[in-house]
C-alpha cells in the first residue's frame, strides 16, 4: 500500500486520509467484498496512471440520474468527476457546448478507443428510426450504436436506459427502449451493466465504477444485468416494515390508524415484494434519516423492476415473488387411514373379541362354580 499516494490523493480530494479510506471501505462493504477490499480500491484509485475516461450519453431522460449523483456526499460529485474519473462528455455538466462538446466527445472516443466507460441515462426511442430524440443532428439510437462499439463497458444508469422507464409507459408512443435490448438486437456484444432506479441510488453507480476500476472487470450480475450486490434481494426481504407483513398488520388507507402506526404498506399497493433493490439497506438517494419511500409511509412503486414501475398501477397489489420456503414451516403430515374397509375390519375384530371374552368369562364362571362345589 502506497501511503504517500493515498496521502496525496486525500489532499487532492480535499478529504482526510482517514475519510478517503473510510469511503473506499464503505463502498467495499456495500458490495459485500471481503475485508481489505477497501484498501485495494483506494490503491487502484490512487495508482491509476490516468483517471478512467467516461462518456455520459443522455437520451429521453429528466436528468434525475445526474441530479441523484450530484447530491452524493461521500465523495461529492466534483471529486468524482474531477479526481476519480475523467468525465469527458456529459450534456448537462460539460463546460463547452454545441460543436465544442461534440468535438470533445469525438476526441475522447478516438483517444480512448476500447478503454472508456460509457454511461447512458434515458431511454432510446426506436420508433420511426429514433427520430424522437436527436442530438447534434443525429438520433440517440445512432449515437448509442456507434459509441457502444468503441467502449469497454456500458453502464445503463437509471430505469429508462435499463429497460425503458417512464418514457416506455403505455402506450409508449416513441418506442422507448433500454440500452441492453437495443444492443442485443443490433448484435453489439459490449458488456452492459444496468443500474435501474428512478433515480438510482448514486452509490450503486459509484460502487460499480470503483469495482470496475479496481478489479478490471464487472461485478457479478443477475439475469437482467443488474449488479447482484445492489439488486440481489427483494425490497420485501430487508424492509423495516416486514415484521408487520408477517404478523398480518397492514395499513389499509392513507392516514388510518394502522398507517400512522407504521404498519406494512402491502395493501396500499407496495411493490416491495416484487422489486429487487437495496433501498431498505442504503435508503433512497443520499438523503439519510430513514427517508426512502416506505420509510416515509408511501408504498414502493417498483422503479427498479422492469414491468412494475410505470407499468403496474401505483396502488394495485403486488404479486409476491416466491422463494423456496424454509423448513420452519410445519409440514403436511400423512393422515391416518380411515377407509371403509379398515372400519369394517375394526368392527369385526371388536365383535370377535366380545364373543371370545364372553365365552371365556362364562367358562371361568363355570369353572369357579365347579371348584366351589368340590
Amino acid at each position, binding site marked *: 500500500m502506497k501511503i504517500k499516494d493515498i496521502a496525496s490523493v486525500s489532499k487532492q480530494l480535499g478529504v482526510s486520509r482517514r475519510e478517503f479510506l473510510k469511503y473506499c471501505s464503505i463502498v467495499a462493504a456495500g458490495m459485500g467484498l471481503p475485508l481489505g477490499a477497501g484498501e485495494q480500491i483506494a490503491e487502484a484509485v490512487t495508482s491509476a496512471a490516468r483517471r478512467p475516461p467516461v462518456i455520459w450519453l443522455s437520451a429521453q431522460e429528466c436528468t434525475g440520474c445526474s441530479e441523484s449523483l450530484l447530491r452524493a456526499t461521500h465523495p461529492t460529485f466534483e471529486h468524482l468527476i474531477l479526481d476519480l474519473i475523467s468525465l469527458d462528455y456529459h450534456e448537462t455538466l460539460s463546460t463547452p457546448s454545441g460543436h465544442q462538446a461534440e468535438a470533445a466527445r469525438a476526441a475522447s472516443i478516438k483517444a480512448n478507443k476500447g478503454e472508456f466507460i460509457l454511461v447512458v441515462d434515458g431511454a432510446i426511442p426506436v420508433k420511426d428510426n429514433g427520430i424522437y430524440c436527436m442530438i447534434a443532428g443525429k438520433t440517440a439510437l445512432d449515437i448509442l450504436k456507434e459509441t457502444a462499439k468503441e467502449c469497454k463497458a456500458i453502464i445503463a444508469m437509471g430505469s429508462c436506459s435499463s429497460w425503458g422507464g417512464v418514457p416506455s409507459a403505455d402506450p409508449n408512443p416513441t418506442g422507448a427502449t433500454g440500452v441492453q435490448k437495443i444492443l442485443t438486437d443490433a448484435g453489439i456484444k459490449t458488456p452492459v451493466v444496468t443500474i435501474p432506479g428512478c433515480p438510482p441510488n448514486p452509490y450503486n453507480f459509484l460502487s460499480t465504477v470503483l469495482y470496475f476500476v479496481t478489479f478490471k472487470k464487472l461485478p457479478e450480475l443477475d439475469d437482467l444485468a443488474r449488479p447482484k450486490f445492489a439488486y440481489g434481494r427483494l425490497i420485501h426481504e430487508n424492509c423495516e416494515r416486514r415484521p408487520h*407483513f408477517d404478523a*398480518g398488520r397492514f395499513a389499509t388507507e392513507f392516514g388510518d390508524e394502522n398507517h400512522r402506526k407504521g404498519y406494512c404498506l402491502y395493501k396500499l399497493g407496495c411493490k416491495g415484494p416484487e422489486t429487487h433493490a437495496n433501498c431498505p439497506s442504503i435508503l433512497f438517494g443520499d438523503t439519510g434519516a430513514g427517508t426512502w419511500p416506505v420509510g416515509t409511509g408511501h408504498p414502493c412503486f417498483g422503479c427498479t423492476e422492469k414491468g412494475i414501475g410505470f407499468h403496474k398501477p401505483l396502488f394495485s*397489489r403486488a404479486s409476491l415473488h416466491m422463494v423456496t420456503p424454509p423448513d*420452519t414451516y*410445519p*409440514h*403436511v403430515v400423512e393422515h391416518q387411514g380411515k377407509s371403509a374397509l379398515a372400519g369394517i375390519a375394526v368392527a369385526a375384530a371388536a365383535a370377535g373379541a366380545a364373543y371370545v371374552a364372553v*365365552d371365556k368369562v362364562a*367358562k371361568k364362571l363355570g369353572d369357579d362354580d365347579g371348584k366351589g362345589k368340590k
Partner: protein
Amino acid sequence: MEIKRRDFLKVATAGGLMLAANAHPSLAREPKARIKDAVGMLYDSTVCVGCKACVSACKQYNETPSSFSSTDEIWDNPLDNDAKTYNIIKLYKSGTGAAKDREQDGHAYVKRQCMHCVDPACVSACPVSALKKGPKDGIVSYDKDACIGCRYCQVACPYNVPKFEFEKAFPMIRKCQLCSHRLEKGDIPACCQFCPTGACIFGKVEDLLAEAKKRLAYKPGELRKYPVERVSGGPVAERIVTPYVQNVYGEKEGGGTQVLYLAGVPFEKLGLPALEETSDAQRSETIQHTLYKGMIAPIVMLGGLIYIVHKNTKDHK
C-alpha cells in the same frame, strides 16, 4: 331359563332376515343437502404465499395463546392444529422445493382449519349435542356447557380438527368456529380479513363455489381479477393465473364442506384426505340405525350371548 337349540336358531334366523331386509339402501339415512345461505371460505393454495398473517390474526382475534413445538419456547410455532391453534399454514415440499405449486421439486402451502362440513361427523358422533351445526349459517359450533369431554368428535373428524385441552383441569374442545363472534358484529373471519393476497376469502358457500369453478376455467398465464377478503364487495387484486388441479375440494368430498379448496398440487399431497362422496356421518348413522332398528338385532345378539353362557355353564348346575 332353558333355551332349546332349536328355539335359538329360529330367533337367530328371523333376526338375520330382518337385518338383511334393513340393509336395503332405501332405508339408509339420506345425505344432507347444503344449507342455502350457509357461509364458508375458499382457500386457493396457488394464491397463498405462506406469510401466516392468517395464523397470527386467528390467534389475536380468538385470544388463543402461543403454541410451542420447540423446547426454547421463543415464538409461536405449532406443528398442527391444536387446542391453541385453530388455523395453521402447512407446507408441502418435495425435492429441491424450488417451484411453487409443482408436485415434483416444488412446494405448496395449505391452510388447515375446521372444514364446517355439510354433514359433520363430529356433530353425528357427539352424544350430548355439544357440537351443533347452525341451521342458517351452517357453522359447526361448540357448546362447552353441554360437553362431557368424551372426545368422540376428535376421533370422528376425518380432517383431524377438534382438539382437546389435555393439559387443563376443566378442558374444552377447541376448533375454528368461523369467527362467529366476529360475524355477529358484521365482520368477516380474521383469517380472511387479514390475508393480504386473497388466498382465503369469505362468503356464501354457493358464491364461493361459483368463484372456485370460475377460477378452474381460467387459462394459466391469463391476468384475472381475484377477490380479496370476501367473495364480493371487497377489494380485488389482479393476478396471473397458475395451473389448477381440476377439482374443487370440498364440493363433494366427505359429503361436502363449507370450506372449499383450490390447489396446484394434488389435494392428498396437502394432507386433505381423498374422501368418498358419502359422509362418515351418513355411513355410520346408516349402520347404527340399521343395527338398532326395532331393537331386533340387539335382542338377537343378547339371545345369542345368553345361549353361549347357558351352554358353558350347563354342566355345573
